[in-house]
């Protein structure tokens, strides 16, 4: 069946990013997202790629994410490197990530989430699951004015449209 080539479809393809002085909204590449279960300490979680990031996802649960997809081989190597007793769930296609940053990012996000986003209360590296409007999302602070939202693939377009609406005032 070599004549058929399977093609990947990114869910936010065709959605143009927003970029103003105050707010920047952009879809992130659909790379790798692994949900890790039963790992007690952050330090015990290995990362599969140089640019992979680690987000907390509740007690003993983690997300490992990165912009590039892993080859079957790289994935197998990574899974084998996980600590004993850990379980990994591939969510690379189940979650979509959106980057939002800018001077007014906290004000825009406050239209969706009840989480107090002030730097002192939600410092760099903080991650939490929150309801964003009516959509559950994983919210991560990457920098003072830079956040990442990770949502279920099926809701990605809807959340994107909500973020665009919330950003209009700042564009």
């Amino acid at each position, binding site marked *: 069946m070599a004549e058929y080539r399977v093609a990947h479809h990114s869910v936010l393809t065709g959605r143009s990013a927003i970029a103003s002085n105050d707010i920047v909204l952009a879809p992130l590449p659909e790379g790798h997202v692994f949900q890790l279960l039963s790992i007690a300490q952050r330090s015990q979680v290995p990362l599969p790629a140089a640019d992979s990031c680690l987000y907390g996802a509740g007690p003993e649960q983690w997300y490992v994410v990165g912009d590039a997809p892993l080859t079957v081989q790289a994935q197998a190597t990574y899974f084998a490197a996980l600590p004993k007793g850990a379980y990994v769930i591939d969510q690379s296609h189940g979650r979509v990530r959106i980057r939002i940053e800018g001077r007014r990012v906290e004000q825009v996000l406050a239209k969706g989430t009840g989480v107090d986003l002030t730097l002192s209360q939600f410092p760099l590296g903080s991650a939490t699951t929150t309801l964003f409007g009516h959509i559950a999302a994983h919210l991560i602070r990457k920098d003072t004015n830079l956040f990442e939202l990770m949502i*279920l*693939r099926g*809701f990605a377009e809807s959340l994107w449209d909500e973020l665009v609406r919330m950003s209009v005032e700042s564009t």
Partner: protein
Amino acid sequence: MTSYRLASGGDIDRTSRLRFSFDGTKMEGLAGDTVASALLANGQQLVGRSFKYHRPRGILTAGSSEPNALLTIGTDGRVEPNTRATMQELFEGLVARSQNRWPSLKVDIGALNGLLSPFLNAGFYYKTFMWPAPLWEKFYEPFIRKAAGLGKASYDRDRDVYEKCWAHCDFLIVGAGPAGLSAALAAGRAGLRVIIADEHARTGGSLLSETATIGGLAAPALASQIRDELVSMPNVRILERTTVFGWYDDNVFGAIERVGKHLAETPAGVPVERLWRIVARKALLATGAEERPLVFGGNDIPGVMLASSMRTYLNRFGVAPGQKVAIFTTNDSGYALARDLEQAGVSLAAIVDSRAESSHRYQAKAPVIRGAVVTDAHGGKRVSSIDVSNNGRTRRIEIDALAMSGGFSPIIHLACHRGGKPEWSQKAAAFHAPATLKDLALAGSVTSAWGLYSSLRSGGGKAVDLAHDLGFKASVPDFGAVDGDVSVLSAETLWRVKKAKGKAFVDFQNDVHANDLDLAVQEGYGDVELAKRYTTNGMATDQGKLSNINAIGILAERRGVSVAQVGTTTFRPFYTPVSFGALTGASAGYHFQPVRKSPLHDWAKNNGAVFVETGLWYRSSWFPRNGERTWRESVDREVVNVRKNAGLCDVSMLGKIEICGSGAPEFLNRVYCNAFLKLPVGKARYGLMLREDGMIYDDGTTSRLAEDRYFMTTTTAYAAPVMTHLEFCAQVLWPELDVKLASVSDQWAQMAIAGPKSRAILQAIVDADISDEAFPFLGARDVSLLGGQLHGRLFRISFSGELAYELAVPAGYGASIADILMEVGKHHGIQPYGVEALTVLRIEKGHVTHNEINGTVVPDDLGFGRMVSTAKADFIGKAMLGREALNSADRAQLVGVVTLDPSKSFRSGSHILEKDSAPTLENDQGYVTSSCFSPHVGSTIGLALVTRGRERHGEEILIWNGLQNEFTPGRLCDPVFFDKENQKLHG
């Protein structure tokens, strides 16, 4: 003379003229005006008609408690009825209309109601319109609705946008008057995260209407100076035009910001109103106090106004109320107004002071009549004279405006929103907030701390205390000496003027006068809550902000008890009305609710799918082709094609859960009522999950992918509830089991490939052998696709009864794989099919969904009795399933239903009756849970839950649809209509 604009004074921009219209008359105001001040400046004192008697009404206040000046503002879809002219800022081109009058404000036929007033008193609805009963709906109610009412909403689409927002702070201050500003300054300087909100357009509160100086600075200038400093602090947020309307659990406050209500058009993307939810660690109410009206005859005639409001119009807006003004007061605040009026060149006819003595030394020209009351005001559309009574004598004084002050009521609403009851202070003659409030304090005149100096000090002081509680060190700001302030101190109460001849209004908005309250007491409705409902006092859109206190006083006098014994009615949010638009926020139109899309959505769309909303999902219903005129034609074709060739259906919406851990086999064995412990790796099994009460909760297949890993599918609707249920089981019921759960519903694009040709089609893309021997029914395994390009999961399961598979591939590849399957299946006759065809296929096979699993059925009711394990020690639902009633022979059981005449039809929900019994629910035998047209049977078929259904196959019955009055003769039968031996399934 009417009201008019003074030649100088006021905090308005005299160079910036704004045109507006009122009832079609063109007028001009100034930047900085409210609609109310602009109307008064134009001499327009008559602004509305009262609710019941259609009496002429004028502007009574200068704030949010305004009961009379309710106008309809705007045109088309931006119409907003019942807007308080006192709160609405003027803008160029504003269109305002009066309400509740016909044919015009000046000549209102409804005013004839005044002649009927003996019949329209308290409780008149209950007394007058009881008989004859049929007239209520046809005549009385439409008549009353037309005659009495507020403005009308528009049917046009609202072009504005609204939104909701969260805010968090250490310290929320409600009210930006002297106490609030002082508190904000203290807290802001100490570094707290402060939010200060005020319902008015500008911060300053009473400072903006004040002529006293503080530290040598004019009061409005001090307000500006403090505001400037607050604006410069990054830790302070000022929310102007923002009404904090409710206090909720966990110190969350609701607030509404009128972002664009003062603009002719809001800029694109900017909401016209924003609903805030403010989470505060500590909060301070600096909400001030409301001046009380006095209850005397004709106290509602245009030109009669609250004294502090008249002072606001004079000092802030440069508007004089008339040229011969009288002041009727029970306290010293009237003298501050007198001083300011005389300074502005307005002559005073008299100051009527109800007290025999006053400590205030008034040194101006107007005669002061002590120990006196105004018994009646006279005039039609404008007040022209008053009757003043003292020492047994009554004299008439010609005037053109009257100010009144009956003392002040602290604005404690928010403090009472969480159940606390106000407490009466005899000393302050006022209700105060409940004594114990968690994380909420009060400062300024809301605590009856009268005077500018006290307010500034108490605001700063409270802020220092609250900051200290939060670990901050703050100090009370010092603003210097106050000069020229008139401190009110406590007032003697005067709930009503007893000798009044005319109607003395208590509730202006609902036209409740003092005699109505007398009648309520007389007729046994003297309790404050009963009197409210009997008279409608306090039930209007102002919620009795001005009227409740006087009503309580009158009830107390009439009942011969204290004010404290009468008490208040219950305070509830909202403090002032909040628009439906704001409560809806952005969830309107396209953004009404989130849309959940399958990874195969675009594939289905490209194949011409018609979508249906199921929950938040968009599912493909059917795929019409050229020449098909009805949905049924498409669905019939799809069904027949699946049975004959093959079809592809998107089933990605099914819930998918991965269950990991060494405890997973035992976990599933306890969750399902059938056995799961020994399910081999590489196999799928249908599972029934029960509730604790023995009823079926959900069904689906679960496959064992590895020794310690399972893949569960749930129904679409129960994906989230089942996940929650499993988490509860794992975390709470059996924490000792090593089980971890993850929802993978969105990770996989899942498609059913069903029909006799399905194997041949799939084999073209699956690398491994999937012959019946290599991959038999209920097989489940990881598969390599297209020469190793991709890995997916293949399950040999069937909902249609055909040889069928479900293939799951990573979601991003779903559309591509579906396209390839359509391409390789083309010569096998593959067609896409939607949920309608899926439903027909499953009904033909007697497969159940939540139509049948309706929360009242146990496994045996659906023919699954033998699936329930008797060997297992325990599973959820086991104990309760043993109940006698759940094992009764009389239970409703799943059967099939067919019509006797194939040309006839019936609908789901129809009831089953014995053949010759009357159509009553008493004779009800059950109901049709699912129905469809079956191309295989050639008629409508259905599934039904019928009493003792299994032993009644072959019985003729009557299918009764009581809603449509349809009767269809039918027959009960085996619920499996197609391939009873399951030969195709195993093909």
